């Protein structure tokens, strides 16, 4: 359980974080001088971190315990609180580090092309580097406090990058919304930490996770639910999902890296890392799976109704993370499955976003799929790589999503009883909807007649962009098979989650599940073809639609609810308080002042008269003091 002190290369793990952090610092402080080579430095630091992560993983694999700690310095030590700035390198954290630096490096490279014409490209790379550093701290930290620091750090990077084109009001608003909804979740995480400290006097993983057994059941459940609130905020899960689609205002590489592959999966990491807490709190686990199931459906339903290519992918991300929540909520049978899906999703969703960015690049930054169409021949590489990502996502047999999503669906059914069938059913239905909305997206973008606006001249993107897409497409095809069949992730993660157990008996045989899912997926795709592929796509969305479609277009009214329940009353309250503060509290005070000093107009115009009377007051006071002191001393 307790990590052994790191030696050799592993003791330099802090460089993983320091490299991109230094890159960000140089680019931000260096100013315009670094414009010419800034992006190269940023790529170098992330690539360096990736190489280091690979070497660390190899080193780690050679150790018996596969869990080492790196203590750097005492961050805070006061009273009973001891927080060391320290890292925990174990299979879970290093797996994330590989994903973050690997996909991160590819997206850095892609961004060189994507942001080539942006005058603020250096700032963009600085923020990307900053994000990578914060995200690595989040996963590598050895305590909940270190995680919290990284957690809010990625929130900052996300804010800066969503608002990258800050002159656009929509981007500025989306960034603020993301940060604030995240902070709502962060409150949960913070309270969980306070509760851990109160109960156990520590916030380190070793201290807290090793001592769950001594805590009362209600306390463990409370900690679990508070952690879950944090996870929901970061990962765009119900009821804090509304910020994620808006975050698509950021440049597309940001959507790929932060809002698809890495940051938004931090909630899954948090729950998996806190496995001993959740394993001891079945009630909290039940809430996790319920939230996962609800979010699968919300994301999938909204994904069906949007016409903006990035928003469809964003809702898809919300939905897919729902699968991961469902998995880790199932407990030991689901942790490895959830992480595996997180990794394959990291590949294919990052690839899909980069593909969407490539399409936008060729279409003059347009995102409305009703104005796409017939791009398959114009952008062949994009089409092929995007297509592979699409197939991986919908779970086409033997591609990545097939392996990792099926494992989750199986685990859901294996929960047994009515709840198992319910969760499994939701997961299967979600797979069908996923096939529907992704097929719709493919058909509207790459097939059919061109519906381009006049000034659009689609073209394939440069190699610096397509190359990362190709790499990710390869990952989308192969990663699932590799992680499930060749190098089983469950075995690699065993030091964290325990040795994988073969389920004693399956509710439904895996083969049947597999066939069922594949059939449902095929039906979903077929439905999309019937609705979208067979006929002409109107260039404007039909205005007269049924109630369910309207609800889906409004993402089931989450924004409207937030607006009505929180924002508008909050605004009224603020206005009322400002009024009260000016008229009420201050008015009373000024009134008293006037009563004491003469008239209110005198207070308003009061000039030196008051100082004189104050001096008089002080003198009077001094006389009083002396009198009192004399009286006391004499008495």
């Amino acid at each position, binding site marked *: *359980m307790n990590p052994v002190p790191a030696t050799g290369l592993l003791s330099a793990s802090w460089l993983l974080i320091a490299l991109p952090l230094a890159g960000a610092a140089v680019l931000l402080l260096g100013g315009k001088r670094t414009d010419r080579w800034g992006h190269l430095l940023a790529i170098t630091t992330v690539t360096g971190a990736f190489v280091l992560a690979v070497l660390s993983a190899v080193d780690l694999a050679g150790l018996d315990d596969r869990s080492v700690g790196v203590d750097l310095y005492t961050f805070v030590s006061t009273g009973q609180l001891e927080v060391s700035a320290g890292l925990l390198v174990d299979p879970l954290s290093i797996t994330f580090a590989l994903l973050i630096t690997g996909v991160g490096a590819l997206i850095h490279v892609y961004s060189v092309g994507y942001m080539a014409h942006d005058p603020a490209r250096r700032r963009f790379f600085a923020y990307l580097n900053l994000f990578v550093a914060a995200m690595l701290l989040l996963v590598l930290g050895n305590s909940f406090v270190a995680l919290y620091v990284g957690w809010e750090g990625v929130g900052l990077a996300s804010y800066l990058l969503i608002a990258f084109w800050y002159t656009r009001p929509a981007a500025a608003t989306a960034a603020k919304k993301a940060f604030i909804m995240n902070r709502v979740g962060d409150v949960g995480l913070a309270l969980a930490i306070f509760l851990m400290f109160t109960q156990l006097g520590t916030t380190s993983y070793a201290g807290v996770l090793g001592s769950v057994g001594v805590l009362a059941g209600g306390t463990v459940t409370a900690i679990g639910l508070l952690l879950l609130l944090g996870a929901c905020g970061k990962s765009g899960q119900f009821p804090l999902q509304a910020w994620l689609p808006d975050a698509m205002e950021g440049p597309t590489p940001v959507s790929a890296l932060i809002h698809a592959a890495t940051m938004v999966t931090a909630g899954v990491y948090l729950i998996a890392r806190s496995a001993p807490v959740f394993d001891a709190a079945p009630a909290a686990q039940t809430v996790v799976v319920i939230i996962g199931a609800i979010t699968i459906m919300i994301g999938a339903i909204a994904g069906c109704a949007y016409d903006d290519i990035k928003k469809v992918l964003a809702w898809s991300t919300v939905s897919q993370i729902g699968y991961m929540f469902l998995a880790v909520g199932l407990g030991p049978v689901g942790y490895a499955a959830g992480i595996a899906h997180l990794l394959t999703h990291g590949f294919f969703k990052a690839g899909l976003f980069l593909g969407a960015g490539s399409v936008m690049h060729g279409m003059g930054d347009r995102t409305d799929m009703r104005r796409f169409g017939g791009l398959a021949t114009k952008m062949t590489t994009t089409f092929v790589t995007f297509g592979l990502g699409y197939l991986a996502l919908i779970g086409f047999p033997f591609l990545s999503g097939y392996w990792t999503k099926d494992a989750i669906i199986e685990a859901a059914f294996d929960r047994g009883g009515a709840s198992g069938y319910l969760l499994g059913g939701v997961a299967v239905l979600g797979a069908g909807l996923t096939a529907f909305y992704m097929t719709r997206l493919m058909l509207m973008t790459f097939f059919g007649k061109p519906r381009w606006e006049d000034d659009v001249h689609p073209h394939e993107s440069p190699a610096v962009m397509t190359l990362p897409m190709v790499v990710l497409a390869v990952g989308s095809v192969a990663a699932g098979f590799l992680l499930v069949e060749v190098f089983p992730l469950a075995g690699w993660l065993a030091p964290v989650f325990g040795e994988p157990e073969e389920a004693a008996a399956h509710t439904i045989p895996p083969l049947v599940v597999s066939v069922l899912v594949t059939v449902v997926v095929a039906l979903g795709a077929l439905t999309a073809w019937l609705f979208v592929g067979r006929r002409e796509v109107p260039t404007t969305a039909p205005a007269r639609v049924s109630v369910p479609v309207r609800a889906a277009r409004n993402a089931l009214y989450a924004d409207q609810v937030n607006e009505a329940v929180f924002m508008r009353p909050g605004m009224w309250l603020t206005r009322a308080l400002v009024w009260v503060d000016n008229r009420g509290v201050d008015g009373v005070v000024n009134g008293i002042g006037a009563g004491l000093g003469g008239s209110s107009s005198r207070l308003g115009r009061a000039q030196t008269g008051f100082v004189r009377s104050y001096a008089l*007051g002080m003198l009077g006071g001094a006389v009083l003091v002396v009198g009192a002191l004399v009286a006391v001393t004499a008495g």
Partner: protein
Amino acid sequence: MSDFPWLLAMIAVPAVGGAAVAALPKGRDLLVKQVTLAVSALVLVLAVLATVAFDTGGDRFQLTTSVSWIPAFGVDFALGVDGIALVMLLLIGVLVPVVVVASWEDTGPGGRSTKAYFAWLLVLEAMMVGVFAATDVFLFYVFFEAMLVPMYFIIGSFGGPRRQYAAVKFFLYSLLGGLVMLASVIGLYVVSNSQLGEGTFAFDALRQLDIDPGVQKLLFLGFFVAFAIKAPLVPFHTWLPDSGAEAPIGGGVLLVGVLDKVGTFGFIRYCLPLFPDASRTFAPWILGLAVAGILYGALLAMGQSDLKRFVTYTSIAHFGFIALGIFAFTAEGGSGAVLYMVNHGISTGILFLAVGMLISRGGSRSIADYGGVAKKAPVLAGVFLVAGLSSLALPGTNSFVSEFLVLLGSFPTRPVFTIVATAGIVLAALYVLLVVQRTMHGPSRGLVVDKPFPDLRRRELAVVAPLIALILVLGVYPQPLLALIDPAVAATMTDIGSDPGGTPPVHEPVTAEQGAN
């Protein structure tokens, strides 16, 4: 080296310097500024050297100097610092030179003499040092009141259009608070006279009195009201937005950054150790005010249309956090609160300065007059954002450590208040990012288009650079300050009957060795 009267020097140097500046001939403005800067820099050096001379494992009060002042009443000119006072002196040492450089090109309304302004700044510095360094309660009271005079003139002579209204209001409130406190000071003397046979104002002697609970309550309230006005707790706060808004930027930085901290300093230095029973009796009420202040200040900040008033309301929210940490009566909360006092001085300081830089370009305090600053002055926008992030206590910045410690330390003893207070974390993000969006983001408009709006100049960079450096360094390595603060807070916890070693956990965590058995 420890025999050197560091504290006396830290009072005398700016006091004499202030007089010298005032005596300089008219029309030598540059010389005035140079002398002021040199004097304030010397005070910073003294503060650093005093810190070096301070032994964290030593006596509660160190670097002491005591001269009998009014022997008839047992009043001594007694100076000394614990870690709490010492970090406040460091804060003063850092902020005053920054303010001097920031005010370099300011001119008073109607071309008023800058000489007077800088002279008052130095006098103010001397008084502020005195108020934190006094270990005689009467001397403390004298500095507490005398401190008002330079600030009164800084606001009243060099402030904005409603400066005189603001200055008078500032004075009126302080008059009220000061008089009530004076009554309690005398009351303390009376009690000491009856218990010890002779009256004294020495803090250490008063701390050991055994005061009847009923009397404690009355005396406590006298101090409390004065401090609650100074570090304004709702509803004692309405003077601060006016004073902060009308004060010149430099004065505002010192007002909110340091002067108001005398209130929270007073809570932890005087209210808790002198009146432990009364503190415990009133704690729930004060915590209620503190938490109300966190929410009220935040909501009001959101509703402001004036940049400077906005900063003062954020401070009211922050003072709520500090009071929460102090009246939770835990070592973690107390240390967090003291660290918060330092960090808030830095982060509100830079926020005020950034607002000032905005106003000096646009010529308006109204938020609505700005928009899209980031496009024309990206560095200014970046500084404003860093200041804002520190204000919302983002991890990696100084304020995170203190706010986190306050909440973490308050949770074990006061979970309900703490949970309500965490709403302040969300609201802080809201009020900071709202103003960032309104002023910095979007297309350039309003005064940002109408005026030249250059980015930060060298002098302005020199003003903000040290503060940003402190924000980041104290964000990742706060331990040196905590090491200074902790022993003093532990002593205070002993005074109040709390565990000086911190809050023991409900359960012992299972250690590795136990697990192995």
